[in-house]
Each structure stands twice: as structure tokens, then as C-alpha cells.
């Protein structure tokens, strides 16, 4: 009897201590996974409701599974045009901004010149200005230049190049700082002129950073709403289209387009992770 009375509390405290240790060890993991679930929840909802078959105009409550929205993704008036405009502007603005931003990065990293500090500040400022101020100030400029340029496709293009440049500079700069200058000197020693050296040595080495910057720029461009909305006039990009239709009722086709963009972006990101992993393994094998 006495032994039982003695052991019982010990077992209980042992159990308590073990649970406590278990909780302590896994609390952080559980919290982390909960936050990940929170991050994924709206994404899951967007994808799920792209397969919804809503009974009325509103796509708020799950009614039933259908593939119709994916098959007839452009059945909503204006959606196809908006998506095409988004892709065109994204492509054009990215190409121009990547070129201009890379040149700025080359100048900042490679050269010491009067005004270098000012240049750095000028590049940093658009990133730290609220989007609404960027959009509003550009609109006040364009309202004064309507004789030359109407609000529309090209004003959106100009705005996108403006805010993408800074991100390109930051991305390419990071790569250029860790760049081995001896490779270029070797090329010159071997008789290559400066243009050839740039084309055959410098460009291939910074190409991955330019590609990363371009992908980031494209993502920023097709996602941008605020700056675009201020300077779009009657032109519609995909986000501007969503804003307009959100006041009425959002059709599931909007979820289809957003899901498609998401899937392409994730596929590219995963490919990049795999590519890095493989090139890391290859360099490991080489040494």
C-alpha cells in the first residue's frame, strides 16, 4: 500500500515533466508550422475557389467542383485584354528597367566618381517612398503633359520602369561586389578589347543576377496595382481589372488567372532552387 502511494505521484510528475519537455522541444516547431499554415491559407482559398461553381454572382461560399472556370477562363468581358496588357507591360518594362538598372549598378560598383553617394540615395528613394505617393506624383506630371502623352499603356510602362530600376540595381550590385576582376584583366592580357571583354566575360558572369533581377521586376510589374491605377487612364491591367470588378462581384475566372500566375511563379522558383542545388553539388564534386 505504501509503495503504491509513494510511486503514484512520482509517475504523475514524471509524466508531467515528460509532457513539459515534449511541449518545450516542439512548441517552436508547432508555432512555425502554424504560421506557415496561416501564410498558405489564402493561397489555398484562391486556388480552391477557382474550381468553385458559384450559384449566384458571388464567389464566397463553396458550392461544388467544376473545371469550367479554367476551360472558359476568358469568358468574362475584358479579362483577356487585361491579362494581355499586364504581360506586355511586364515584358517591356522589365527589359528596359533591367538594362538601365544594370548600367547603374556597373557604374556604382566599378567606378569612383563625383555624385556616387547622391546616385545611391536617388536609387534608394523610390523604394522607400509609399507607392501611393509615387503613383500620385507621376499622375500630376502626366496631367500636365496630356498634349504629348495620354494616360494609358505608355504611362503605365514609364511608371513600371521607374519603380523596377531600383530593385534591379540592388540585385545586380550584390552580385557585382563579389566579382573577380582578374578574369577581365586576363581577357585583356590575352588581347581582347574592352567591348569583347564585356561581351564574353563580364556579361556572362553577371547574367544570372540580371536574370534574377528581371524575374523580380516582372513579378513586381504584373502584381502592381497602386501606381498603375493612378496612371492607367482607361487602360486595364489584370490588377486594375480585379479592382473594378471587386466592386460588383468577383468571378471565379479571376481566381483562375491568379492561380495560373502563382503556379508559373512557383515552378520558376522551384526550378531556381533545384538549379542552385545542382550547381552547388557540381562545384563540390569539382574540388
Amino acid at each position, binding site marked *: 500500500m505504501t509503495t503504491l502511494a509513494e510511486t503514484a505521484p512520482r509517475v504523475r510528475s514524471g509524466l508531467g515533466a515528460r509532457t513539459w519537455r515534449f511541449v518545450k522541444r516542439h512548441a517552436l516547431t508547432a508555432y*512555425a508550422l502554424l504560421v*506557415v499554415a496561416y501564410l498558405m491559407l*489564402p493561397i489555398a482559398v484562391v486556388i480552391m475557389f477557382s474550381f468553385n461553381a458559384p450559384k449566384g454572382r458571388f464567389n464566397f461560399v463553396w458550392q461544388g467542383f467544376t473545371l469550367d472556370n479554367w476551360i472558359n477562363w476568358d469568358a468574362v468581358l475584358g479579362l483577356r485584354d487585361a491579362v494581355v496588357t499586364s504581360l506586355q507591360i511586364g515584358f517591356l518594362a522589365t527589359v528596359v528597367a533591367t538594362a538601365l538598372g544594370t548600367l547603374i549598378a556597373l*557604374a556604382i560598383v566599378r567606378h569612383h566618381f563625383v555624385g556616387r553617394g547622391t546616385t545611391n540615395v536617388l536609387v534608394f528613394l523610390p523604394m522607400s517612398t509609399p507607392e*501611393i*505617393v509615387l503613383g*500620385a506624383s507621376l499622375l*500630376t506630371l502626366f496631367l500636365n503633359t496630356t498634349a504629348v502623352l495620354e494616360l494609358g499603356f505608355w504611362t503605365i510602362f514609364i511608371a513600371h520602369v521607374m519603380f523596377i530600376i531600383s530593385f534591379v540595381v540592388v540585385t545586380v550590385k550584390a552580385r557585382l561586389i563579389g566579382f573577380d576582376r582578374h578574369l577581365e584583366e586576363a581577357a585583356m592580357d590575352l588581347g581582347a578589347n574592352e567591348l569583347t571583354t564585356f561581351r564574353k566575360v563580364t556579361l556572362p558572369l553577371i547574367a544570372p543576377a540580371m536574370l534574377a533581377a528581371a524575374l523580380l521586376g516582372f513579378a513586381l510589374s*504584373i502584381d502592381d496595382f497602386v501606381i498603375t491605377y493612378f496612371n492607367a487612364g482607361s487602360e486595364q491591367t489584370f490588377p486594375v481589372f480585379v479592382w473594378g470588378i471587386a466592386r460588383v462581384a468577383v468571378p471565379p475566372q479571376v481566381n483562375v488567372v491568379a492561380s495560373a500566375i502563382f503556379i508559373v511563379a512557383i515552378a520558376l522558383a522551384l526550378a531556381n532552387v533545384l538549379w542552385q542545388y545542382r550547381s552547388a553539388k557540381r562545384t563540390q564534386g569539382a574540388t
Partner: protein
Amino acid sequence: MGSFFHRHGAFTPYLLLAPGILWLAIFFLIPLAFLGYESLQSGLFPDFQFTWELSNFSNGIRDYREQIVRSFVYAGIATIACLVLAYPLVYWIAFRAGPWRNLFLLFIVAPFFVTYLVRTLAWLNILADEGPVVGALRAVHILGPDGRLLATTFAVVSGITYNFFPFMALPLYVSLEQIDPRLLEAAKDLYASSTQAFLRVTLPLSAPGIVAGTLLTFIPAAGDFINAALLGTPGQAMIGNVIQAKFLESLDYPGAASLSFVLMGLILVALLVYARIVGSEKLTG
């Protein structure tokens, strides 16, 4: 052409800079000057006159004090919520996730791959009155029988928190990932408990990430109008909503322009106060 790329030519850097810097000057700096010019005008659309109308500023602050204060309160709460949500997650990724690190980093940026407006609209589905969240909260009597989440301050602040979360998490990750694990081992060897090691080693070393994350989250959050427009009511309107409506609906350009400068000025003040608190050397890195 050969000298174009010459590294030691005095004009080379300026040639490289010219196109991009001109673009930024014409489409970023000059527009800001136009916005300043606009903010001092008076009159009604479309006949505005430049009259050094400084009262635009005082009137704007007086008429929209409520929205201004609300913007900064919402942005502040959302920034703290982002920090509380992100820090443990990012800590776990940096120190515990091992080979899964890159996958979990992808989880953090994944929301950015869904169009901003669409992922905000997804919260309409989640928080809908007929939805599971409201249903569950009503069942456990946290919400009354016709209590709702949509069109409340909670909905707007959680929308902002969700949308700007990666801006907090990524700089935090960069600062935590750089911490040498041997420093923590050294702390343990010197008989620090895990709490002490965290407070005296990890937390101070991650301070630059906290500072950067706070700035990157707070600045866009204070100027946001999408979350208040989609998830809230006029009772949750922020300064961004006022600027947007004045510019694009009521066509009160001087009023909108002066409020834009009020927003920027107050963000600057907030940054300076923050710099005083955390120390300016941490702010500039």
C-alpha cells in the same frame, strides 16, 4: 566604342548612369516637384491656381486627423504582429529546418506570387459571415450571434499584416542566418541558459534584421489603402483612402497632393523617432 567601357575614363560612369538616372530624375524627382507645386494651389477642378496655399496642409491635417492617426496605429499594430508571427518562424527556419530551409523560405515569399488584390480578396472568403472562421468563433461565443469579422478593424489590420509579412520575415532571416552557431555554443559553455543565450546573443545579433524589417513593413503599411477599401468600411478608412478618393474621385488635386506630403512627412518623423529609440547607427546599417 572601345573607350565607352573604359574603366578609368572620367566620363564612363556618367555614360553608364545617364539613361537610368535620367529616367529616375524625370519620372520620380520631377513628379515630386509637380506634386509639391500642386499642393500649394487653390481653386476647383479644372481651374487650379498657384497661390502658395499653405492652408491646404493645415486644413488637411485638421479634417483628416482621424484617418491619419488610424493609418499610423494600424501600420504600427500590423508591424508588431508581423514581428511576433515572423520571428519564431524565421528562427526555426534558420536554426532547425536543416535541409528544408529553402523550401520554407519559398513558403514565406509564396504569398507575393498571388496578385495582391486577389490574395486580399481571399480574406473576404475566409472571414465571410457564412464562413467557417466566423461560425467557429460564434459557436464558442467569442463573437455574438450576429458578430462579424468583415468590415471591422480586425479584418483591415490582419489584411495589412498578411500582405506585408514577407517584408518583415526576409530581412529577419538574413540577419538570423548569418549568426555563427559557435557563438551560441560558446554562450552555453559559459553556463548561459537557453533563454539567456537567446536574450544576450541571438536577439542583439538579429537587431539589424528587426530594424530593417520594421521599416520595410511600416512604410508601405502606413500608405496602404487596399486593405481598408476591400476588407473595411469608411469607418476604417486610412490616409491612403483619402488621398486616393481625392485624386481619382473628387478631383481635389491640391488637397490630395498636400496630404501625400503630410503622409511622407509623418513617416519621416516616425523614422526619426524610431532612430532615436534604436540608435541611428543601427538604422543605417
